[in-house]
């Protein structure tokens, strides 16, 4: 957009841009819901604030409707604003993932907020804003649009991380997240400015046409490296991961779920947009870098997770390590397994969202009773809450990649992508991944051990009462995790046809 503004003649007659309202419908619906939530919060009495979560939840589902109608409408791609905003099968798929993940987070938040006595209106307002940013990220095909989407999704998340404002750890969480996030934005913006300077356009497709392997200017190389580093912060890839454990531990648990799933997924979506559209011929530059990052991310995340005694912190490192697995296919993007890599990442994101959100739902449910975040507080969970115990086991097994739960499809796709590349790099990465998936079971297994084999720590075996919204979240995630593992076709048939 910036480029078109700069290039256009100031006195030329103005014609209003053609806007495809159907294509923008999900964003428009979401924007409407955001306004509705804000207004409703202002004029509702304190006792009726529960309406807000209902509006937010139904709003997210309403925004999902146009995604379905767009998907069945048959247009393969609707491009707007000179190619800066594209609605295609890929973006529809990731938008769908964001919206459904957002819906589950709303379900998780409902009782957490009501019982914890937190501000509700602003919470849902910020949450929805962040989701809107993610939905926009799915379609962003322009450096400026990407940047705006990124800030749109990040800034509300900074505030949400610090939502438990009387808790020192939550303040730390918000501050760290904010400072490092802003730093990452700065690095990324610098990279973007270099790219713009080198290629003269902010449209990703235009950049892609200018950047060619071998004949790339040093400035462009710097640009690519800085942009990727910026997003490496966002997806908490090693060595840019330091904020994640503290932030995850301090933030309210539903927000931790949101950050570790949706926000991370948005970072990956942005990376995909950039790498597949802007740097498809820059493999020489980004592949080794991402490969090394992927290997060190999964390894370090795993090794650190082994030592944790706090569940959320353990999951923070687990999510870092899972991020390494998602990065793995990106390390071979641009080569002959490009298509496989794209399928693998999107599939992984979907499976990971279902599984991790489910696990956080269990954590929230259990901590309603135990009021503790320590691993040992889960002792004997199976004996007094068998359903939660089995669900937690299923989610952990899925994260560990054990069939027939969803995780194996995700891991399988990632391995498939790196092995198709046929390079030694690819095989080496696959071996590192294989070894890591074993290490990961060390801590997933230790949680399972608590659930099944340890005694109840305080002998209190009263069953856990879970509110209906939490039950719904558990059922959605549990069902999705199992279904994705048994009939992977339900996600693969979509993620396999997407192209960029």
């Amino acid at each position, binding site marked *: 957009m910036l480029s078109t503004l700069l290039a256009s003649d100031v006195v030329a*007659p*103005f014609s*209003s841009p053609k806007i495809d309202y159907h294509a923008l419908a999900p964003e428009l619906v979401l924007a409407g819901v955001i*306004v509705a939530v*804000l*207004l409703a919060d*202002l*004029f509702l009495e304190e006792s009726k604030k529960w309406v807000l979560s209902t509006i937010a939840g139904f709003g997210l589902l309403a925004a999902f409707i146009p995604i379905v109608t767009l998907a069945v409408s048959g247009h393969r791609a609707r491009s707007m604003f000179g190619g800066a905003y594209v609605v295609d099968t890929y973006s529809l798929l990731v938008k769908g993932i964001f919206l459904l993940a957002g819906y589950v987070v709303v379900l998780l938040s409902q009782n957490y907020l009501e019982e914890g006595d937190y501000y509700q209106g602003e919470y849902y307002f910020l949450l929805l804003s962040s989701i809107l940013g993610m939905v926009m990220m799915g379609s962003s095909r322009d450096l400026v649009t990407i940047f705006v989407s990124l800030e749109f999704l990040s800034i509300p998340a900074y505030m949400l991380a610090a939502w438990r404002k009387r808790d020192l750890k939550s303040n730390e969480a918000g501050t760290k997240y904010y400072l490092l996030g802003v730093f990452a934005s700065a690095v990324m913006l610098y990279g973007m400015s270099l790219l713009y300077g080198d290629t003269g356009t902010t449209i990703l497709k235009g950049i892609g046409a200018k950047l060619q392997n*071998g004949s*790339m200017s*040093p400035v462009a*190389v*710097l640009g690519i*490296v800085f942009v990727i580093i910026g997003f490496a912060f966002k997806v908490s890839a090693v060595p840019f991961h330091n904020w994640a454990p503290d932030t995850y531990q301090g933030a309210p648990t539903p927000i931790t779920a949101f950050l570790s799933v949706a926000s991370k997924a948005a970072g990956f979506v942005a990376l995909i947009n950039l790498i597949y559209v802007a740097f498809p011929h820059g493999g*020489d*530059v980004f592949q*080794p*870098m991402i490969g090394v990052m992927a290997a060190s991310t999964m390894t370090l995340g795993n090794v650190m997770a082994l030592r944790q005694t706090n569940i959320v912190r353990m999951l923070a490192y687990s999510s870092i390590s899972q991020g390494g697995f998602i990065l793995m296919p990106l390390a071979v993007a641009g080569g002959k397994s490009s298509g496989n890599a794209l399928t693998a990442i999107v599939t992984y994101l979907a499976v990971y969202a279902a599984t991790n959100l489910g696990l956080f739902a269990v954590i929230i449910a259990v901590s309603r009773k135990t009021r503790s975040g320590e691993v040992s507080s889960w002792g004997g969970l199976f004996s007094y809450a068998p359903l939660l115990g089995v669900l937690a086991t299923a989610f952990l097994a899925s994260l560990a990649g054990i069939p027939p739960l969803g995780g194996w499809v995700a891991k399988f796709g990632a391995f498939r992508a790196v092995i198709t590349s046929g390079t030694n790099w690819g095989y080496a990465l696959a071996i590192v991944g294989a070894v890591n998936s074993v290490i990961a079971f060390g801590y997933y297994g230790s949680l399972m051990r608590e659930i099944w084999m340890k005694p109840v720590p305080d002998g209190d075996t009263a069953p856990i009462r879970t509110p209906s919204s939490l039950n719904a979240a558990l059922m959605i995630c549990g069902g999705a995790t199992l279904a994705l593992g048994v009939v992977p076709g339900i996600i693969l048939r979509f993620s396999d046809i997407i192209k960029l």
Partner: protein
Amino acid sequence: MSQLLRSYLTVAMFGAIGVLLAALLLAISALVRPNRPNADKSKVYESGVDPIGDGWSQSQIRYYVFALLFVIFDVETVFIFPWATQLERYAGFGLLEMGIFVFVLLLGLVYAWRKGVLRWV
């Protein structure tokens, strides 16, 4: 592989130059500037007055909220002025867009009003 190394060499050189430049500037200024310490210079600067109390004293939050409100509506004019100069050119489309823009900002005002920000006491 050499191509690969060359790519990353650029990045490494860039980083090295960045560090060197900063170090160089600090070094030059350290060499060139006169060094005459006195007691007043090491004081915490506070409008030229001797500091009173500790650094963590509280200030009225309302100043902050008002400042924020001011900035929002101040920036609003920055967008409205250029639009106003081209009002006829952008015609109906421009009017609609600006209407949405002002509406969203208005929501902010309503929010501030309902939350009691506009009352001073």
